């Protein structure tokens, strides 16, 4: 029995009282600006490449600018590594692997990784601020999520380094060699941690390429690695764009490629390394269903919906971008969602009260705008939160569409922005069918108070991570990764180690 307010009940109640029922989230007690001060932060005007334990000028001789997407101000210049630079980095990593890292006791590898974890905690504030400046994400997210999790990933994996023999029930393991790692711009430092920490723990050396639009925190991490006195060449950071990434993935002396990013690029990499015996792990796109049943904890589900799609401006591969709501509570959910969205604060990523920051880049903004326009053209009804958009920088307000169908582009394509597509279902099996009706399979959410239903749904949903009555939760002990075209291999947990080991 549906127990939440239906539209008709609501209207009847209104007629009875004659009251105007609308919550007003105005300026009765508005929050003053609360900017996190960047005074303490030092960003160099120009960064070279971190290869073989040294900061070097790129052989390419080229640098590119990295900007603050909330202001379009230039933050720094970073090196644009070419194939020769990548080759240098791989050679350094190979040398480090062969001569010391692969031969070092696990317990000693562990201590280096613990050092990195500690240094990240010590420099957390600085790193969080730079993350928000370079990527546009709200400081409260970089401060409370990205940074603690990045440190936790190093801390967790450090402890594995001398326990790998226990990890696979006595099956013998050995490291792979040089890992080439390519990471995205949505969680720049955290993704570097997800990649570097397990690779080092398992005895591999690393060449990491951060995303073109967000290289700064990876470069600050390189400084931490330098200060932690890791042997030279164990971790090498090469900045650049798609060509740099391609050079790294296709380098013949790379034993392992790990990529997080779009499905289309992931497919290109998989194709490129065919026939090379390189190990590959891919963490790609998603179009996750967030399923809300009528018997859900409704108010918490609404919070979960907001967290699912507006967290990090929706730049999240596992974002709950398709809301599947049981038809009987559709109107209630939409009403509550609108009121909840009215309290979302969009603005300077460095303001501690900002909930929604800037879109990461001009190109991503254009992509979001294109798909939103497609949604409108397909006749879906759009609602955007009434946030004023700053005049400079790249911004898109939290938005949802109702009246969409499974065939709508906005229900099928990954938007990677703060745009939610709302669909309805009538029975649990219909929800399962719609949730699985995608070529992706990274994550899914289920909201219901009925335990048996959670497990039924969790079993039926074809996705690597199922959040029951929660969403967008991450932990280094918890394996993360997709089914189908969302990629293969896991990151985190015991299972994640397999991506960096040869297991007999």
């Amino acid at each position, binding site marked *: *029995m549906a*127990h*939440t*307010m239906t539209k008709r*009940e*609501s209207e*009847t*109640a*209104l007629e*009875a*009282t*004659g*009251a*105007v*029922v609308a*919550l*007003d*989230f*105005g*300026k*009765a*007690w*508005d*929050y*003053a*600006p*609360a900017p996190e001060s960047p005074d303490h932060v030092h960003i160099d005007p120009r960064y070279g490449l971190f290869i073989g334990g040294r900061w070097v000028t790129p052989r390419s001789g080229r640098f590119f600018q990295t900007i603050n997407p909330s202001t379009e101000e230039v933050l720094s210049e970073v090196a644009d590594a070419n194939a020769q630079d990548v080759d240098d980095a791989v050679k350094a990593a190979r040398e480090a692997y062969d001569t010391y890292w692969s031969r070092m006791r696990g317990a000693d590898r562990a201590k280096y990784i613990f050092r990195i974890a500690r240094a990240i905690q010590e420099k957390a504030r600085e790193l969080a601020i730079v993350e928000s400046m370079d990527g546009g994400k709200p400081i*409260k997210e970089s401060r*409370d999520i990205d940074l603690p999790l990045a440190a936790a990933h190093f801390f967790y994996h450090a402890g594995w380094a001398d326990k790998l023999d226990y990890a696979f029930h006595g099956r013998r393991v050995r490291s792979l060699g040089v890992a080439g790692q390519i990471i995205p711009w949505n969680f720049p430092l955290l993704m570097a941690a997800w990649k570097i920490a397990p690779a080092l723990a398992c005895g591999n050396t690393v060449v990491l390429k951060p995303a073109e639009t967000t290289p700064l925190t990876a470069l600050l991490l390189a400084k931490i690695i330098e200060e932690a006195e890791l042997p030279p060449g164990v971790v090498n950071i090469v900045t650049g764009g798609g060509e740099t990434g391609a050079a790294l993935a296709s380098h013949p002396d790379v034993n392992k490629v790990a990529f997080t990013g779009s499905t289309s690029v992931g497919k290109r990499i998989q194709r490129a390394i065919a026939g090379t015996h390189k190990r590959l792990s891919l963490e790609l796109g998603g179009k996750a269903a967030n399923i809300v049943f009528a*018997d*859900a*904890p*409704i*108010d*918490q589900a609404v*919070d*979960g919906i907001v967290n699912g799609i507006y967290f990090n401006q929706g730049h999240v591969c596992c974002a709950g971008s398709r809301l599947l709501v049981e038809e009987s509570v559709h109107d209630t959910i939409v*009403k509550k969602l609108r*009121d909840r969205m009215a*309290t979302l604060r969009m603005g300077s990523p460095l303001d*501690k*009260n900002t909930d929604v920051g800037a879109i990461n880049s001009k190109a991503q903004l254009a992509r979001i705008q294109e798909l939103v326009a497609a949604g409108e053209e397909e006749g879906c009804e759009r609602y955007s939160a009434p946030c004023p958009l700053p005049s400079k920088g790249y911004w898109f307000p939290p938005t949802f569409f109702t009246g969409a169908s499974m065939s709508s582009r906005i229900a099928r394509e990954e938007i990677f922005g703060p745009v939610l597509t709302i669909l309805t279902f009538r029975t649990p099996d219909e929800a399962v069918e719609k949730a699985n009706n995608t070529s992706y399979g990274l994550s899914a959410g289920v909201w219901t*108070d009925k335990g048996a239903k959670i497990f039924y749904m969790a079993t039926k949903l074809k996705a690597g991570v199922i959040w029951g*009555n*929660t969403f967008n939760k991450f932990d280094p002990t918890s394996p993360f990764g997709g089914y189908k075209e969302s990629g293969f291999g896991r990151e985190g947990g015991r299972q994640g180690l397999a991506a960096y080991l040869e297991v007999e």
Partner: protein
Amino acid sequence: MVASHAVSTLEHRSDIGETDEVLESDDLAGPPPQEQPLFKAGAPRRGGVGSMYALFAPPAVDAVALEERAASLGKRSLKGETKLAGLRLAIAMMDLTTLEGKDTPGKVSQLCQKARTPLSNDPSVGPCAAICVYPNHVVTAKARLAGSTVKVASVATAFPSGQSPLDIKLADTRRAVDFGADEIDMVIDRGAMLVGDFSKVFDEIAATKEACGPAHLKVILETGELGSYDVIRKASELAIAAGADFIKTSTGKIQPAATPPVTLLMLEVIRDHYYASGRRIGMKPAGGVRTAKQALHYLVLVKETLGDAWLTPDLFRFGASALLNDVLMQLEKQRTGNYQAADDFSKD
């Protein structure tokens, strides 16, 4: 049959064993037991009020997500004017409370003075919304607050346990109102709530509301005794459906008392009720709110759950005794830029 049960209009017999017992008793000669539905809370009793949940099966509450949301709202950064305005608002929303066995007219009088002018050197601060006392001190308080806007709230209904017969509770209420109380803070029968005798809880609230006459009714759920958020949600809805003007977390005698997640949950019930009926119910966290920082956290909960309309003493109160001085200290700190010393503020 026990006397207190006989008072309830909603007593029902649900199993054979009890019926057998009745057949053997003197009740055999009396009127046949009335057909009673299992649940009687909700719309039918009050014409549309509480009509969201026709079968009284309110939505479930997820504890972890609720607590996360409440905690996340505690991270709002309140600076400068925002902080000052929030502190002033908190003072204006305060029900300055003394509920002790050792309460005397002298103590109550001093508290009334504090409520009227919290800062002796700055009449622009305050007054508080109300003082909250036992019925025996209502007359004193009323006299001491004459000519001010400060209301007198009295606890009643066998506070704090509520474990007395309904007629006693109603008499308690009527006497407090007769003494001049503007507001009645009643307690629900938590035992009845926990055994699922929702009818008894509902009827006692409804009867107390009637006994209040013109006085406003705040219904204390004593959330610290209810065991889970689901029961708190249920009790909140029962109280609102039965006629509460305010719902209030705690007596202050039980730990935990008010917490941000409990308060957020009750605000959400108030929101659902508002969506369904257009009627605005007030909220009062009580007990455990001791610092200005906590008070501001609660104001953020209100602002982002119910919006501007509830940011008024008419719809939000703090039940507290120790809170006021910390708020005053922070207010002075904010105004002067210097950290304050505790003894700079009167302790009444």
